[in-house]
């Protein structure tokens, strides 16, 4: 087989009690590719990310990352393999300062370049730079999302899982985040799995798209193909 994708998901089934949050999900996500995972509330998008990063154990199926089977590993080990996960709302630790949040992200890296790495993030997100010593609860929603993404980038991940990064943010900030993702894809070869309810903005930057409905894959194809499929858009994406 030629060129296997960085992330390969096969027959993934995750249960919450009797509810099948994910039902036989299979798709792949490659390096230097933005893969959008779309669908309505309750489609299983968040569960998918949580299963990949090891916070939830699947009932069946496999998740392979660069050949390693993730479904048997604890979340902290998976993070160490180069999987960054920005949970819904960012998961910024409010009691810690901006700088401490960033430092936490950098602790995963073996090489001791913490300080320089943080400077790179501050250059990427100038609003954070002036608030380094402030506790994270003082940040606005957009700044928190920047901090969360910056913290994940501190670990130099090979793949970034993003859960609704645009939720509750002004359109201009959403646009900034989307163009940042494109830049990381092009410059660093980062694999991005982007979970979004806001299908229109996600499709505008994505290369591939997976549409979930009630835990099942409805369609997995190039983002342009999914965006052009009017029936699909009306039925599952709401635009």
């Amino acid at each position, binding site marked *: 087989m030629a060129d296997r994708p960085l992330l390969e998901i096969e027959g993934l089934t995750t249960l919450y009690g009797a509810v099948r949050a994910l039902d036989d999900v299979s798709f792949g996500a490659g390096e230097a590719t933005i893969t959008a995972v779309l669908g309505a509330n309750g489609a299983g998008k968040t569960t998918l990310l949580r299963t990949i*990063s*090891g*916070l939830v154990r699947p009932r069946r199926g496999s998740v392979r990352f660069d050949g390693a089977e993730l479904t048997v590993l*604890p*979340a*902290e*080990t998976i*993070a*160490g393999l180069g999987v*960054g*996960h920005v*949970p819904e709302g960012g*998961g910024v*630790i*409010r*009691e*810690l300062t901006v700088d*401490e949040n960033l*430092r*936490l*992200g950098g*602790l*995963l890296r073996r090489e001791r370049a913490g300080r320089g790495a943080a400077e790179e993030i501050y250059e990427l997100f100038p609003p954070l730079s002036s608030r380094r010593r402030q*506790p994270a*609860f003082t940040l606005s929603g957009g700044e928190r999302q920047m901090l969360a993404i910056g*913290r994940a980038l501190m*670990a130099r991940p090979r793949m970034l899982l993003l859960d609704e990064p645009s939720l509750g943010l002004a359109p201009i900030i959403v646009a900034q985040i989307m163009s940042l993702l494109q830049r990381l894809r092009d410059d660093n070869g980062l694999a991005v799995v982007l979970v979004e309810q806001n299908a229109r903005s996600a499709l505008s930057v994505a290369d591939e798209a997976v549409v979930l409905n009630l835990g099942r894959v409805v369609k997995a194809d190039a983002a342009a193909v999914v965006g052009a499929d009017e029936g699909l858009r009306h039925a599952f994406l709401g635009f």
Partner: protein
Amino acid sequence: MHRFIDLTLTGLTSGFVYAALALALVLIWRATRVLNFAQGAMAMFTTYVAVSVIDRGGSYWLALVVALVVGFVMGGVTERVLVRRVETGPPLNAVILTLGLFIFLEALAPMIWGGKTRSFPAHFSIVGIKVGSSHINLSPFDLFTLGAVVTVLVGLVLLFQGTNLGLRMRAAAFAPEVSRLLGISVGRLLTLGWALAAMVGALSGVLIAPVVLLSPNFMDAVLVFGFTAAILGGLDSPIGAVVGGIGIGLVLSYIGGYMSPDLETVGALVILIAVLMVRPEGVFAAAKQRRV
């Protein structure tokens, strides 16, 4: 005036011991959201271990180190073996567990060491220092107590604020799930948190024992005062625990000196109830900020 100074010095010294125990309670609360009612009993146990080291000819310093190490191990094992099983259940399970451990340890100690009250040797004199022609209520051992607690406080501040390990421990306590996503082994750090807390508790036991005499329940009153101090300062705030501990020590000393020693425990209870009524989150808690 002389009496006021004496009472202040006495209150300060016992306040530092209450602060140490309150700090132990706060460390555990912050890490695992468990109120460790066995904190005092664990410290009682390690103090008995220390006194048996001395009985066997060991030095005071060896006994102190052994007590701290036993406390550290005891705290870690308690978290790993017992507390971990109840962490996911309703909070009442953890309360019952630590109460059970409290009763178990206070029953076990007399089986090993006998139930009689006995003295605990202090390495330094517990007679007040002579200033001019009169003795003041501050002995060399009191100075040792103050120094030991301050050393532990400074050490903890350096650990939590100045090292990556401390940063990891704080993160694991505040946001366990997010911490795991950042590659932090949360379980191990919670064990370490309990171990450190029990070690601080063990120190408080060794420091108060020469003053109050050793018996299987000699730490019960200290636990009540330490608990009051922790509630006063806010269970989430290490600084609050220290300030609360010193404050409780002073207030109880004044109550004991100017009114009656019998009223000390009642005084602690009154403070506890007053805090719970007026500001249940504690004086130093950041509870308001956390709701953002």
